[in-house]
């Protein structure tokens, strides 16, 4: 479907085309169709350069077969649930397939050809992750099942051996359950105390309060980088500074940032960072923990078993160095290799390019959604200084988000999420039980947003007609 976005479409004149600077500013020439390839030997003035800027959403879409389908009553799928999980490009699916077809074998132990190849590719994937977030060495990357397991790893391994009774852990109320519950379990075992930072009136975590809460008693600060509900971004550099000043460590939940922007752990200075593969075009079943070498080296094992040992006797065992120390058992080899392929795919596009595109899309989503009467969007209002991630959690007056999501799905093929998005404390704080959430990724387009908003208006009309 073609929408013109209200832009006056003016074909560039010949002289303009000859100006190499003409196409640098993407917004000035926001064409949303491809120029027809001129077949006849027509006048030279109409030969348009093939590189007319097509949005990232359009240019990458064909890599994602899953997006080209119809659902329910024959509506085309409009997938807006990327904060929950992302879709995978063919390159990633092919990489996993290829692993299983050509060289599936257990890693690290074997001597034979297949095993050597599998080990190579698996360790190559680790190096790719390390390079992607600019870790200083690949041994600082521990593969886990997902970000949740990575956080649990830190809680049990680092937490149990470093926390004393009355030690404090500072978190925000906007944390994902995976970044809250492991510390609750830990505090039961160690008598550590959890302190929570609430929100400002702008509906972002109160960094002033965070700074005040961080004290000599604080041993760990656990924060998200980008909020999966508020779409806000925390100033990690500053938080790390405050924490390190009092000798506390920082763990950053980067699940919603690593897939969408450049994340540089050297730059951020974090001690631990976690992310999940499945939110960044990679397969499910694998995620990773980044930890500074010296920290990992001092940590006792998490899960015990094969791979993480050095020598095993009947009465005791000695343990391997990190990262192996924390990777017990056969890992998700094919999946880790798939994650490596996802990183290749994203790097080829460029994280900065992805981020820039999504900033634009985020604004478009926010502005479009805001125009719908009765809609209340959570999180900060975007401005020159405040950037939102490309997601909006919202409610519509008088309608339950589950009803909205159901109708949007059934009638319009639009996939959004409804519920508490693994952030019950945040919902409680905001005084709501649930919300709906539309979240985008670089393969979404403004048309997707248009379809969503149109569907939402229809949904609201539908339910109103019953009142």
């Amino acid at each position, binding site marked *: 479907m073609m929408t013109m976005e209200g832009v006056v479409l003016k074909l560039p004149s010949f002289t303009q085309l000859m100006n190499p600077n003409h196409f640098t500013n993407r917004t000035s020439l926001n064409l949303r169709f491809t120029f027809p390839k001129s077949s006849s030997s027509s006048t030279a003035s109409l030969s348009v350069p093939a590189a007319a800027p097509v949005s990232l959403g359009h240019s990458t879409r064909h890599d994602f077969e899953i997006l080209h389908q119809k659902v329910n009553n024959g509506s085309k799928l409009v997938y807006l649930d990327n904060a929950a999980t992302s879709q995978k490009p063919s390159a990633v699916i092919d990489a996993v397939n290829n692993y299983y077809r050509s060289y599936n074998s257990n890693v690290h132990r074997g001597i034979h050809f297949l095993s050597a190849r599998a080990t190579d590719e698996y360790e190559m994937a680790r190096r790719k992750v390390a390079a992607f977030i600019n870790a200083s060495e690949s041994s600082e990357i521990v593969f886990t099942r997902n970000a949740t397991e990575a956080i649990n790893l830190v809680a049990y391994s680092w937490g149990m051996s470093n926390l004393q009774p009355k030690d404090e852990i500072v978190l925000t109320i906007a944390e994902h359950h995976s970044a809250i519950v492991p510390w609750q379990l830990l505090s039961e075992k160690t008598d550590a105390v959890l302190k929570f930072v609430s929100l400002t009136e702008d509906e972002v975590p109160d960094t002033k309060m965070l700074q005040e809460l961080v004290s000599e008693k604080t041993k760990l600060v656990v924060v998200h980088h980008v909020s999966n509900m508020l779409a806000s971004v925390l100033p990690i550099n500053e938080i790390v500074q405050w924490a390190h000043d009092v000798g506390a460590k920082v763990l950053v939940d980067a699940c919603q940032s690593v897939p969408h922007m450049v994340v540089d752990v050297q730059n951020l200075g974090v001690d631990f960072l976690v992310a999940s593969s499945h939110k960044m075009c990679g397969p499910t079943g694998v995620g990773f923990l980044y930890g500074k070498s010296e920290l990992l080296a001092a940590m006792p094992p998490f899960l015990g078993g094969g791979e993480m040992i050095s020598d095993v006797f009947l009465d005791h065992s000695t343990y391997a160095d990190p990262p192996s120390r924390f990777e017990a058992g056969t890992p998700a080899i094919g999946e880790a290799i798939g994650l490596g392929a996802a990183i290749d795919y994203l790097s080829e596009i460029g994280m900065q390019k992805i981020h820039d595109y999504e900033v634009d899309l985020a604004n478009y989503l926010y502005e479009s959604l805001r125009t719908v009467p009765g809609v209340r969007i959570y999180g900060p209002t975007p401005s020159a200084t405040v950037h939102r991630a490309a997601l909006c959690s919202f409610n519509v007056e008088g309608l339950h988000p*589950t009803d909205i999501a159901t109708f949007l799905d059934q009638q319009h093929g639009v996939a959004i999420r409804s519920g508490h998005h693994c952030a019950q404390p945040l919902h409680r704080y905001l005084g709501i039980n649930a919300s709906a959430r539309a979240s985008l990724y670089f393969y979404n387009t403004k048309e997707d947003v248009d379809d969503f908003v149109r569907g939402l208006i229809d949904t609201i009309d539908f339910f109103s*007609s019953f009142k």
Partner: protein
Amino acid sequence: MNSASATVFRPPTRFPLLPPNSHNPNPPRIQYKPNHSNPRSISTRSLQISHRKHVTPPHPPEFSTLTVAEKLQILVKEFKSLPEPIDRVKRLIHYASLLPEFDESGRVESNRVTGCTAQVWLEVTMDVEGSMRFRVDSDSEITKGFCYCLIWLLDGAAAGEVLEIRVEHLEEMNVGILPIRASSRVNTWHNVLLSMQRRTKALIMEAYGDPSLPLLP
């Protein structure tokens, strides 16, 4: 089509009101069947409501001395007759509008059905004749619709009948092409049914002290 000897049965006070915005060319039609002996029978009602997006009028369910099992058949058949999931959504929303008023005093924590993405309050009582009475409310229209069906099915039934119903029997009502078999937070009405059964059991225990005692009053 009632026979001359039929007793006119007055439906209980839960008389449905037409949604104010519906354009209804036909007045609501209540169908009665001769009421034999059971004063506790539940009435059902058939309504023709046309929505501006034309909805097929609901198949008039018949009532009177239907057992829960028979009512279940009717319900399942009705939903099976709606092939398009969107029609089920519409039907459920229509039913939501028929749900009787829920007293504010019932919106207490002890009445809340936990484990649901929508909020649901459920009141379970046993009347003087030992039948189970249910009242329910929710902040989600689709959930209310499901709950209406559950109420229609089980309100006034014997405790034994309430406990016999299995979640699988009601799969047909699931909105969506693929019935969600797994129990999850999304399956609010599974949770509601389970809650109805759990609390029925609790009331039986209270009343008779022994759940194995005959449950049919």
